[in-house]
């Protein structure tokens, strides 16, 4: 029996023994489905916390992290087996969130020993919830156009400015920010990557409503916020390097989080067709809509096969420019899927709330609207295509 097979056995035994019965069969085990943790988290089912604790004990909340930071020191292949086995039992990951998907890996790569020891175990235990402070109202796709000022005052920085699209800022304990520490330097220079405790006086999150209704997004205002210099990740004025590395983690998560449930998009469309369209002899009667569903179903499958292929190729190392391809394809596919779903729904696709629409239709309307943001957030499709053109295809800079 190979080492991996042995590990699979071990995981199965562990799960069989420790996974709370009440959680089995409840979740797809994705990186954003489950317990987000943090101090502001509302009370949860004790089984959720028990599950978190038994996993944390084994380092299984962040299995690839070193043991000294709360992980299990496992290889990516081993970790993949762990998630596979949890998924097979329909278990949620014990703790989820941006701590694992973004700031954790970034701290491991760029953080000081002190910062790693301080933050990683708390992330791994879900004690502290993190949010992202990158975008600013004037910046948009031009992320490096950071205007939020950080002025040095002894062993502190004083932060003033505003971040936007800070998802879940109202529920988070800490925020990682790009701030401008040097305004005379060229744009990508003079940026610093810094960690801010949201309880510091002067930090104020405010929720943003989207066209799809309420959302996890916030604006976060910073007014004379004092942050210790030791909270800088990487070097002062060199934060753009750190920030870019984190972006690649973000993109990879957006791409793969869409592809996690093979065929689920097609199934959703077929279900919708079952509720809204005429069928005969086991087929959707409307041949045009039927072929359109097939068209998107095929793209979905080809995308998932691409995810697998990328995963095999990149068993180690950071996500590279592949993440741009995955992000473009996944988000544009998702939009087309919701558009087609709306066409299938006809008048029933127009529900906002109240009578005459069922819960599925109401949710679908909101998700359709929400999907329009997918090609904007996390690096717009335009930015991703620029990256593909230059970094993958080697086309020359736009003059």
């Amino acid at each position, binding site marked *: 029996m190979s080492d991996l097979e042995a590990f699979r056995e071990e995981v199965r035994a562990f799960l069989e023994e420790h996974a709370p019965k009440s959680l089995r069969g409840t979740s797809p085990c994705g990186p954003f489905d489950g317990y987000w943790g943090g101090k502001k988290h509302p009370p949860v089912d004790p089984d959720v916390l028990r599950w978190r604790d038994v996993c944390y004990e084994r380092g299984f909340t962040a299995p690839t992290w070193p043991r000294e930071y709360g992980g299990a020191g496992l290889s990516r292949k081993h970790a993949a087996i762990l998630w596979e086995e949890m998924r097979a039992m329909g278990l949620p990951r014990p703790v989820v969130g941006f701590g694992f998907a973004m700031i954790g890996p970034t701290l491991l790569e760029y953080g000081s020993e002190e910062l790693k020891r301080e933050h990683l175990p708390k992330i791994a235990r879900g004690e502290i919830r993190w949010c992202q402070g990158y975008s600013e109202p004037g910046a*948009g796709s031009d992320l490096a156009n950071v205007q939020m000022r950080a002025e040095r005052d002894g062993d502190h920085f004083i932060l003033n400015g505003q971040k936007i699209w800070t998802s879940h800022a109202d529920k988070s304990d800490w925020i990682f920010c790009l701030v401008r520490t040097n305004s005379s330097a060229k744009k990508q220079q003079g940026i610093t990557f810094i960690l801010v405790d949201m309880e510091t006086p002067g930090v104020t999150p405010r929720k943003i409503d989207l066209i799809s209704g309420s959302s996890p997004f916030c604006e976060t205002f910073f007014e004379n916020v004092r942050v210790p210099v030791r909270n800088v990740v990487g070097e002062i004025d060199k934060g753009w390097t750190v920030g870019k590395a984190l972006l690649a983690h973000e993109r990879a998560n957006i791409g793969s989080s869409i592809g996690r449930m093979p065929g689920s998009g097609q199934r959703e469309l077929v279900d919708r067709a079952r509720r809204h369209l005429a069928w005969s002899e086991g087929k959707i009667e409307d041949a045009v809509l039927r072929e359109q569903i097939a068209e998107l179903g095929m793209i979905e499958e080809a995308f998932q096969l691409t995810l697998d292929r990328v995963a095999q190729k990149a068993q180690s190392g950071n996500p590279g420019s592949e993440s741009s391809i995955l992000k473009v394809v996944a988000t544009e596919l998702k939009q087309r899927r919701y558009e087609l779903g709306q066409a299938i729904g006809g008048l029933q696709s127009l529900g906002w709330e109240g009578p005459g629409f069922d819960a599925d239709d109401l949710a679908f309307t909101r998700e359709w609207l929400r999907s329009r943001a997918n090609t904007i957030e996390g690096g717009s499709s335009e930015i991703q295509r620029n990256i593909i053109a230059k970094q993958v295809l080697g086309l020359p800079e*736009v003059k």
Partner: protein
Amino acid sequence: MLAETARKLVEGKAKVARIRELRRPDHPTGFSRELFAEMAELGFTALSIPEDFGGMGLGLFDLAQILESLGRELAPEPVLTTAVLGAVPLLRGGSDDQKQWFLPSLAAGETVVTLALDEAGMRDRWFSPKTRLERSAEGFALSGEKIQVADALVADAFIVTCESPSGLALALVDAKAPGVSIERQFRVDSRAVGIVRFDGVAVRESDLLQGDARAILQETLDRAAVALSAEMLGAAEKAFADTVGYLKERVQFGVPIGSFQALQHRAATLYCELQLLRSAVMAAARAADEAPEAFPRLAALAKATANETFLHVAKEAIQMHGGVGMTDEFDIGFYLKRAQAAAVTFGDTSHHRRRWAELNGY
């Protein structure tokens, strides 16, 4: 002239931002009574009603231009409802009494008559309603449920498509008649549509529109499709103009984003589509008045083109606005919501393509 007046009116008093007020669940009508009165005074509701009935005797071409102006700011006042959904069936099938009673007050904007057309699961099978008109002691009894009826909340009467013993029929039913109940629906585009239920409502022979009900309904649907297309044209052009304005003014990477060629080419493509849409809508509206044999075909053309173009423009408008376009604080999102609602009203693209194919003999 009137179109210019309409444009000034909406730009002055009816900017799209007011939807945030009108969409509140406690808003009684979903549009502005005052503004509608003003529109009526300016002749918008009288425009296409014959002079004999207190109207101005103009055609769909003139009405379309008004609707285009209103569409620019997504004004929800029931001009299309009264001038097309109410007036057209009455003009074509109303008895003298019905005409005398309703048309002058429709023209004056004092009465709202709307079409109770769609049913759950009906899609575009409008000629086979499940709503039933059955013989009763006093004449007929009407039973059924209509959904997303335009301006149901303020309607004084409904023209109800129903299946009678002799086939499709159009029954004119008073909104206050016993057995009629109305429930407001909340739609993505914030238009105040409603569910209207008919529970054995008494209908007299004289309440039924006369003539070929199928022909009357088809003509009403064709005219409604073109009228709505005109509204969509105005909306799409406005959303596009706002987006081009944003492209010029929004600076990223040190330059206006409108200087990026990839966005320029997409904007140019949208502009071309808008030109075709304008041509289609104008030709269809003109044909309604001048070339009835070409009208059904052109109506299909106008609506299918409006569906595709408005949605395309609205999606690109959000993408080009970036993050702020997704926020409820910005107005551009209203156009996407309206685009989807308009696209599935009076026939989606597929419906009109099939109809076009049929009318062209293939």
